[in-house]
């Protein structure tokens, strides 16, 4: 079972929920936690441990200037403006390349070969006896997160259960994380921004057909509007975490709520059972 933890609005508590859920599960079974927020991964802060690392590369075109006859077909075929054919050479902008391979196909002279460009890395660590942490890290300056997220997910392809901590928002990185997930936990807070962005996130999971439930974090007890939205959208509220100074303190110290206050393990176990329920059964 693969569970993606997503939010519309950033800062609602995805990492907190993902970390505590994975920690609790790992007490009784082998669990894998994947940090898919590759632009700013932070799970390693809660689970420090030594890591092994693998490069993530994407294919990019290499033009053989000796064979190239400047016909311009590669530049025309590139939808992203990454290749420009001049009179005397071909200019390539790696940051615009989406690695689609179209240029290689378009060239009928065999002047384009595939090279590799590093865009990030995936690290693996074992912070607890039954917990594997896989972290995707996008290199600074590289614009596309999706290849690194895909590589991180691939490392967890055969694991079960897998908890995926997503990037905030509803853009490509989130879609990539959600793709192939069995269930989704939407973490929200009962504020106008939280509500607005929860609606957007609900649209996404609905469109992707991923069964989802909501965790209301930092609740002050006045969650009426949020609960109403959840009911209208057919999203069960799986858990409510109160707005408590002590919980914030534990988080700020980089510690886990379920480790410091073991009574919370029961709640996160139930959260997992609820996820199994909304997917229609144990996987």
């Amino acid at each position: 079972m693969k569970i993606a933890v997503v939010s519309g609005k950033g800062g609602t508590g995805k990492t907190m929920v993902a970390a505590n859920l994975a920690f609790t599960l790992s007490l009784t079974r082998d669990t894998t936690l994947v940090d898919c927020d590759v632009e700013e991964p932070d799970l390693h802060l809660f689970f420090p441990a030594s890591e092994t690392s693998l490069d993530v590369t994407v294919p990019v075109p290499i033009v053989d200037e000796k064979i190239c006859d400047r016909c311009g077909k590669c530049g025309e075929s590139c939808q992203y403006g990454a290749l420009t054919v001049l009179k005397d050479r071909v200019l390539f902008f790696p940051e615009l390349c989406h690695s689609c391979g179209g240029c290689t196909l378009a060239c009928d002279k065999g002047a384009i070969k595939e090279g590799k460009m590093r865009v990030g890395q995936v690290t693996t660590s074992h912070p607890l006896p039954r917990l594997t942490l896989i972290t995707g890290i996008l290199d600074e300056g590289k614009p596309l997160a999706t290849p690194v997220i895909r590589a991180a997910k691939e490392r967890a392809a055969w694991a079960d259960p897998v908890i995926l901590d997503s990037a905030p928002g509803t853009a490509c990185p989130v879609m990539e994380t959600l793709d192939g997930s069995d269930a989704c936990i939407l973490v929200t807070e009962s504020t106008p921004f939280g509500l607005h962005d929860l609606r957007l996130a609900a649209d996404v999971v609905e469109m992707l057909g991923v069964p989802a439930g909501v965790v209301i974090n930092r609740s002050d007890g006045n969650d009426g509007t949020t609960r109403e939205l959840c009911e209208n959208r057919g999203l069960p509220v799986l858990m409510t975490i109160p707005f408590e100074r002590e919980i914030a303190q534990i988080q700020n110290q980089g510690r886990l709520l379920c480790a410091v206050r073991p009574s919370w393990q029961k709640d996160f176990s139930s959260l997992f059972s609820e996820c199994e329920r909304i997917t229609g059964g144990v996987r």
Partner: protein
Amino acid sequence: MVEWMKVCITAQGPTPAARVEERFGRAPYFILMDTSTRSFEALENRYAEAYGGVGPKAAQLLIAHGVEALVSGQVGGNARDVLAAAGIAMYVYRAGGTVMDAFEKLIGNQLERAG
């Protein structure tokens, strides 16, 4: 004595009476003008609304049409690289007037060269 024969001016509309568009890559139109005959040709920029990579695409269009000099308000980094590599001169116009006004200022040597 004018240095360039074929010049391009970024425009908001398809004629020299249109206002100059300050942005290069997302300009709705490129007005190509011949400095000796003063004739013009309007090219529609079909990449204007693209997500990205518009600079190189627009520069490629100018190269394909044999443009020697460009008059615009802002030219992004990637476009600048392509234009420089192709040897196309870049001039700055931000006065808010028409394409015709920019053209007259160019041939009157009143525009600052930016590349």
